[in-house]
């Protein structure tokens, strides 16, 4: 039986997890970002347009943790991009249900972007739709769909969502 106190505690822990995740990306700690996922994870950045139409295509579609590691290698070693500072704002954290020991949760994200010679602009807004696993070392994402509300990506999407 889950008590009210348990559920408040769990929600606080999940909120902390999301805040830590945001902080990791704000610091561009890409190697640390990978550590938030399970080996058999699914990570996708997908438009609301595709989700509503039932279309599977993601801008980023990682079908396992190695694909996340490869993306980090690509960003670190091969990609040319304009210097930028991102801030991830996460709110509206909700636990939708707990099923077979897995936590189904969601949260809103807003990401601002400051390019090297410009003021910050709102870059991407949307919702995380997650399935989390609780391990001895804390939570891990088994599945994360980053569903963005933007109709278009503003130029390019470099740092993961």
């Amino acid at each position, binding site marked *: 039986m889950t008590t009210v106190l348990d559920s408040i505690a769990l929600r606080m822990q999940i909120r902390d997890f999301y805040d830590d995740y945001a902080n990791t990306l704000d610091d561009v700690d890409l190697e640390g970002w990978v550590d938030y996922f399970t080996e058999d994870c699914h990570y996708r950045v997908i438009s609301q347009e595709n989700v509503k139409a039932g279309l*599977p295509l993601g801008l*980023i579609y990682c079908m396992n943790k190695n694909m996340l590691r490869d993306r980090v290698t690509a960003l670190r070693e091969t990609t040319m991009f304009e210097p930028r500072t991102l801030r991830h704002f996460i709110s509206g954290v909700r636990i939708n249900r707990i099923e077979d020991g897995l936590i189904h949760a969601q949260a809103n994200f807003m990401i601002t972007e400051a390019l090297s010679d410009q003021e910050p602009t709102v870059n991407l807004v949307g919702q995380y739709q997650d399935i989390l696993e609780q391990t001895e070392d804390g939570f891990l994402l088994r599945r994360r769909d980053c569903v963005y509300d933007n109709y278009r990506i503003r130029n390019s999407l470099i740092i993961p969502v």
Partner: protein
Amino acid sequence: MSCNHTEQAPRVVEAPIVINRRWPEEGFTRIPAWVYTDPAVYKKEMDVFFAGDTWNYVGLECEVPEVGSFKRQWIGDRPVVMVRNEDGQINVIENRCAHKGAQICWENTGKVSDFTCPYHQWNYDLNGNLQGVPFRRGALGKGGMPKDFDPKKWGIKRLRTVNRGGSIWATFSESAPSFEEYCGPDVLAEIDHMLPGKKLTLLGYSRQLIPSNWKMYLENLKDPYHATLLHTFYITFGLWRADSKSECIPTGGGAHSVMVSHNEGKKKSEATAEMERFRDDLRILDAETVTPRKEFNEGRVGGAWVFPAAQFGIQANSLKTRHVIPRGPNAHELVFTYYGYEDDDEEMTRLRLKHANLLGPAGFVSMDDSEMLKQVHTGISGYPDSVSVVEMGGRDTEPTDYMVSEVLIRAFYKYYREAMGL
């Protein structure tokens, strides 16, 4: 209150748009910077090309599967709607009420039985015919449209439309040649290669807004030289590199082009020394991301640019159309529409989705394209009198069987100057 009809209206002096520019003497081996930023040039491009004698990509047949299914789209600045009518035919109509010009379709996709303009509720059938005008006879015996108002004359313009293997094309022009004649055999062969008549399955869209002139994207896709240098993933994993078998074919007087290459996998050669960004040490853990399943002609990749604003191309197992929508001189929208075939097995669908990681706004080999195009546009905007030089691979416009060439860009500007009268 009355309107004084004798009152003098404000005087207006007609001011035609003049493009007061001179192309550099060297001709098509030079590109003047003002061609990307001058609003008068942009306006003329919209008239001459997008609204002129060209065929424009509108979408895939599979996007409008049922009667009444529609997709909103743009041809240059002009909003249009692609819709399937009661006979199963696909129409492309202007997205503009004949009355006051409001968009009759506000959603990207959906299904309707007819179109009603929300402003004054003029109603149109799926062929664009005007079916109803509220208060046409007035109210209380007063007002209404003049007796000789003929609804047949006030339908929404329906564009000439063609379906080629499941791809839909339209033109505003009554004088444009047939689609087949417009494309020519080389471009048509590329389209037929990718759309062999099999039923298509839509996989999804990616859209980005790139802060650069639309021609810069066109040039980027006519430029194999940059792809052999900028894109480490391409060259390292042999997806596209300077020393693989390739062809650059300008066609349609330079307007269109075909650019193809072969995926040869990771290898070292004499040419790799020139590719500063070739990374012998680069390891990829999920090798499948850069390893296509054999599908088309033993790893033949590339595609055709169909002037003015579409490209049909293959990269690994991802099939997609790229569509450029100009958004003023200083920005363009780039839309990738990914698809597969109805008879794809589960593995092939997975590979098509996986290989889509290579392209688009977050793609391993194209996130740096949009980053670069922004730099180019910013770089030239402050120097409208500067010129760029496109002499790589010579100063001519002959087809090549090698990649280190800017021949397709030269051929394009040869065509462009003539068409624009510049």
